[in-house]
Each structure stands twice: as structure tokens, then as C-alpha cells.
């Protein structure tokens, strides 16, 4: 069995959204999400806007403090709210004396782990400080973590990082506005690589780029992974790109993980009705297949995460929804080896 680098167990992230006392309202951005990422693999996370995929990525790095749940990095517990069941390696709740075992409350200082876990943001226009040179943007992490003992070493490090992402050494003295979108995203990647991390959350890193540039950046992510043994959590809404880069894919809907499987398994044999409609909705860049393709059209819009539907959150748009779906939250179960889904009607769908 491959080694787990990241384990996320029963993660909840609720954001307060107005109201007082017992009327206080919460946006249930992430609701009981559990998954793991093996060393050296890429886990893709897809879903529509507002489904909580970005929040999951950020909470995982503790850029947001989780409301509830446990985050384990390389065997070390980074955060534990002390009220969720402990899971074993396979994601099953551990039983102790016939009851589910609850973890001990923990919250470690993240500073040393920031060197290991990094993030690349979606918008390369907003995530770089316009008043810093590219050299300083990349060098900032080196300074903070004291990774260079002399000015010369710092300079060399910055140069080699820029080269690694396909930029020239002269680019170090320029400012972000002098670069195109694709180049800026490369700067963002160089910044993440500055501390020599093991794990990178890629939060929609290519959505803001032109089609012809997207492939360049996707290839670079793959090359860096091969060279440096990186592990990725790759968040995107473009399923075709996620399929290309990921080993496994998780599909989120309204704060819940609804299906998770090996990439090809998920694309060619989806079991959850939402995944199926999501895949059929993707415009295919091939006229003959596109004309023959029958869409499973979903009615309506995604409900508000402020007040999500009871039971299964997808039921308001699901063609198979029954009374059971409104009453019970569907269980997260293993359909076949490594293929998980949460739905009451997997057999019919």
C-alpha cells in the first residue's frame, strides 16, 4: 500500500454569515469531507463554483482554521478539533470498546510545516504583490525561512527557481505587471517551490490562462512532479484538465464529497448521478462525438450553502430523488476497490 502524505478526516468548515444567537447563520462550505492523498500522487478536486473545493484546499493548509475535523500530514496531526472519530488508513472509523474513537484536541504551530506545504493561487494577477520585484516575491519565502546563509546564495537560489519554471534570470528585477498571465503563473509556482515543499495545493492554477498557454503550465506541473517528487491537490472546474493531470479525482457538490475514484474509472464509469451529469455536460472538442453525445440535463441551480437541502444535498436536482434522499444523508461507501460514492440510489443510477 502506498504511503499516505495527507489525511483529511471529517473536515467541516462553516463560515458565520449574519444573524445572532440561535438565529446565527452559517455557510456550510465544507461538510464532513474525508480523503487521503498518497505520496507522489495528484488528487484532483472538481465541482461547480461554490461547492467548497477551494475552501477544502485552504482549510487543509490551515489558511482557514477548520470548524471541525482532523488534518494529518505525513503521520503528524496538524489539527484535531477533538470531537470527530479517528479513521484508519482506509478511511473507516476506528472502533474502541464498541464505540467510535475520538481524537485528542490538537493544534500545532504551522510555521515549520509551511516549508512542506505550499499553494499556487488561481488568479496570477491578484496573487502577486505589484510593488515587489519577481526576485523579491520568490525570495521572500527564502528570507522568512532563513534558507540562504548569504546574499549570493539567495541570489543563486532565486535564479535557479526562475529557470526551473521557464523564466530568464533577468526577469528577477522586473515587476509583475510586465509579465503575461502565463508568466505570472510561473512566478506564482516559483514562489511555492522556493521552500522546497513536498505538497502543493494547486487552486485553479490554469483557469485564468489562455488555451494555448494552459498546456504549457500543465506540462510544467507534470515535469516538476517528476523531478521533485511532489504531491498535488489539483483543484479545478475543468474536468478534462483534471482528468489529464490527476491519478484520482474527487467530485464535490455543495460542500460534500459525492464521489471519489481513479481518474479513468471516474470518467468512464461514474456512479453518482451528479458526476454523470457533470461529465455529460462538458463540451467535447470533437464535432462528431459532440453531436452524438446525449446530455443528462440538470434542472435548476445549485441551492444556497446557507440553507442546504436536508438529507442528500443533490436531491433537489437529482432525477432519482425519493423520500429517503430527503430524510437521510447518504453514506460514503466503497462501490468497488478504491471507488467511493455517497448516494442512496447507486444501483438505479
Amino acid at each position, binding site marked *: 500500500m502506498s504511503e499516505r502524505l495527507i489525511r483529511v478526516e471529517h473536515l467541516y468548515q462553516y463560515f458565520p454569515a449574519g444573524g445572532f444567537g440561535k438565529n446565527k447563520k452559517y455557510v456550510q462550505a465544507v461538510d464532513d469531507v474525508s480523503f487521503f492523498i498518497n505520496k507522489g500522487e495528484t488528487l484532483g478536486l472538481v465541482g461547480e463554483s461554490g461547492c467548497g473545493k477551494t475552501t477544502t484546499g485552504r482549510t487543509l493548509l490551515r489558511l482557514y482554521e477548520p470548524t471541525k475535523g482532523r488534518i494529518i500530514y505525513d503521520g503528524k496531526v496538524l489539527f484535531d478539533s477533538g470531537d470527530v472519530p479517528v479513521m484508519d488508513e482506509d478511511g473507516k472509523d476506528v472502533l474502541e470498546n464498541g464505540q467510535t474513537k475520538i481524537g485528542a484536541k490538537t493544534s500545532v504551530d504551522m510555521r515549520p510545516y509551511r516549508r512542506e506545504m505550499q499553494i499556487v493561487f488561481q488568479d496570477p494577477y491578484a496573487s502577486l504583490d505589484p510593488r515587489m520585484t519577481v526576485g523579491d516575491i520568490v525570495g521572500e519565502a527564502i528570507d522568512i525561512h532563513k534558507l540562504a546563509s548569504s546574499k549570493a546564495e539567495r541570489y543563486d537560489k532565486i535564479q535557479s527557481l526562475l529557470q526551473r519554471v521557464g523564466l530568464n534570470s533577468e526577469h528577477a528585477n522586473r515587476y509583475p505587471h510586465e509579465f*503575461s498571465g502565463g508568466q505570472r503563473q510561473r512566478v506564482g509556482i516559483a514562489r511555492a517551490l522556493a521552500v522546497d515543499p513536498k505538497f502543493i495545493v494547486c487552486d485553479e492554477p490554469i483557469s485564468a490562462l489562455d488555451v494555448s498557454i494552459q498546456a504549457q503550465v500543465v506540462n510544467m506541473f*507534470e515535469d516538476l512532479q517528476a523531478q521533485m517528487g511532489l504531491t498535488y491537490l489539483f483543484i479545478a472546474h475543468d474536468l*478534462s484538465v483534471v482528468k489529464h493531470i490527476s491519478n484520482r479525482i474527487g467530485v464535490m457538490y455543495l460542500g460534500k464529497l459525492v464521489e471519489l475514484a481513479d481518474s479513468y474509472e471516474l470518467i468512464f464509469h461514474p456512479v453518482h448521478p451528479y458526476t454523470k451529469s457533470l461529465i455529460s455536460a462538458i463540451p*467535447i472538442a470533437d464535432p462528431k462525438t459532440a453531436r452524438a453525445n446525449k446530455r443528462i440535463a440538470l434542472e435548476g*441551480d445549485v441551492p444556497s450553502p446557507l440553507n442546504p437541502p436536508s438529507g442528500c444535498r443533490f436531491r433537489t436536482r437529482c432525477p432519482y430523488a425519493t423520500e429517503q434522499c430527503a430524510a437521510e444523508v447518504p453514506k460514503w461507501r466503497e462501490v468497488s476497490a478504491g471507488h467511493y460514492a455517497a448516494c442512496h440510489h447507486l444501483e438505479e443510477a
Partner: protein
Amino acid sequence: MSEYLVNIEHERLSFFTPAGEVKALNDVSFHIAEGEVLGIVGESGSGKSVTAYSLMGLTAHPGKLLGGTLDFNGRRVNDMTEKEFQKMRGNEVSIIFQDPMTSLNPVYTIGNQIREALKLHTDKNKAERQARAIELLELVGINEPEKRLKQYPHELSGGMRQRVMIAIALACEPKLLIADEPTTALDVTIQAQILELMMELKDKLGMAIMMITHDLGVVASMCDHIAVMYAGNIVEYGTTDDIFYNPKHEYTKGLLRSIPRMDSREHERLIPIEGTPVDLLNPPKGCPFASRCDSCMQICLREKAPVTYFGDIHYTSCWMNQKAELEGGEER
């Protein structure tokens, strides 16, 4: 004049910015027949939106039409006055923009905005306008239209807003609907709904659609013809099948190679187009794509490629199609 609804010939348009002349359109020619769906594909800055805006007389300030003729519905757009444009816009040709949140007015109700188009272009009275507004919302698949008409844009979701935009655009049953990246800001499942709606309405109302997008997947399923633009030029034009199965320009080929395929069952490395898009302030002398092209020849850097036809419709301007002749005579 011509039998086409839209006929643009040799259009050249530049923006005169403080930094210099930005050549946004360089000799662009194409036509759209009635009821046809034309897809215009290209990267940002390739001139796809500028082409559409110039047809509606919406070229923004430092922009200037330098040459060519634009005909719409049997009339020359070049010498239209602003008054004539106002009559035409919203009546014979309508546009839906990328972001429905910024193109709807936040301080007016949906009903107000739909009725405005009707008030400007028809002589319907108040009650008739209201009835037509309800009819339009039903047409674009919005439930409870009476209630919706009283709502403001912020009360609707993104997909719903785009439906309202379509309803406004269709208020006067235009002959041409320009859709400028209509689904880029929307989620895939909503995108599928909107595209389906557009095709349905096209069949029902018989209008032509000019679909501007950077997504090859969108054009594959809906367009009759496709124009591929690069740096202010149409580099290739043809039927959807021509473009996808028989591309003749190196840029089109590169574009098709660079997108990940949904149906491949094993991991194939993507083949990107290297380099960055052209700086339109200083466009290259020869083929605009030359600096990023794998098969670039010397002549590509010196001269623009001539138009080569394959059949009646499909054409491209790429020196590769003259390669055999060139190698016979001139040096590579």
C-alpha cells in the same frame, strides 16, 4: 449588395493608444448567412470581440475603422450614423455579454430592463409590453415570470441572469444574435443549459448566431462554420468538420493538439504551443504566428501568407500549403 446577412470584407481596425497604434484587426473578411451559426475562436486579444463590436458600431474610443466594408442586412454599416445604429441595435442585431452581472443594471428590475428594449423599438403599449416581457421569460425557460419581472439582478443566480440577458436580446426578434463568451462565467452544468437554450431558440426564431468563444468544445457542438482568429487575422475558416478533422493552419493544429481529450484512455502528454501571444503594438512583418510555429520557414517571417482555398468554403493563410512549390523554386 450581397445575399448574406453579414458580409465583412477586408476590415482593418486600430486602436490609437498613447503607446502607439494597436492593430486589432488586420484584413478580416467573413460572412454569415441567415440562420447560420458562426463560431469565432481565438485567444484573448485576437480580435474576436472587436470584430463583433465594430459591426454594431460599438468600437470603443481610441479605436478607428481604417478600411474595409461591413454590410449588415443589405446595408452598409460603415456610413451609418449613431441614430441609425441605435435603431439597428437591439432590433435587428443583439448581443449577450460574458458577464451577466455587469451587463444588467443593478438598480432596475428585470421587468424594467426587458420592457425598455420593447419601448425603444416597438410601438406596443404598456400592457402589451408587459405581456411580451412575460412571454419572453417563458421563452427562455424562467419559471414564475410575473414574480421574476419584479426582481432585481442580484436576486437571481448566474445562469438565470444570463437567461434574462438572452430574453432582452431576443425582445425584438433580431436577425443576428452576437454571443460574446456567453458561458465563460458559468458552471458546466449551467453552461450546458444555456447552450441548449440558445440552439432551441435559434431553431424557433430562425436567427443567425455569431458565437465568440475560446472554448473549442463549445463551437464543436453548435456551429456550422468556424473562423479561427490569431492576432487580428482570420487564419483559418471552414465548416466545423473542416476545422476539427482537416485543419490546415499550424495554429489551428496546435490549438487542437494542446487541449486534453476527454475520451483518451491513457495518459498522453499535452503538446503545448510554445511562446506567448503577439504584441499587437509591434506586430511581426510576416505571419503573426511565425514566432510560435514549429514549422516556421524563412518566408513566414518576411511575408504574409496568401489565402489558399480547399473546396468552396475552407480557406487558410499559411505558407505550409505552398511548401511544395516553394521548395521547388525558392530556398527554405
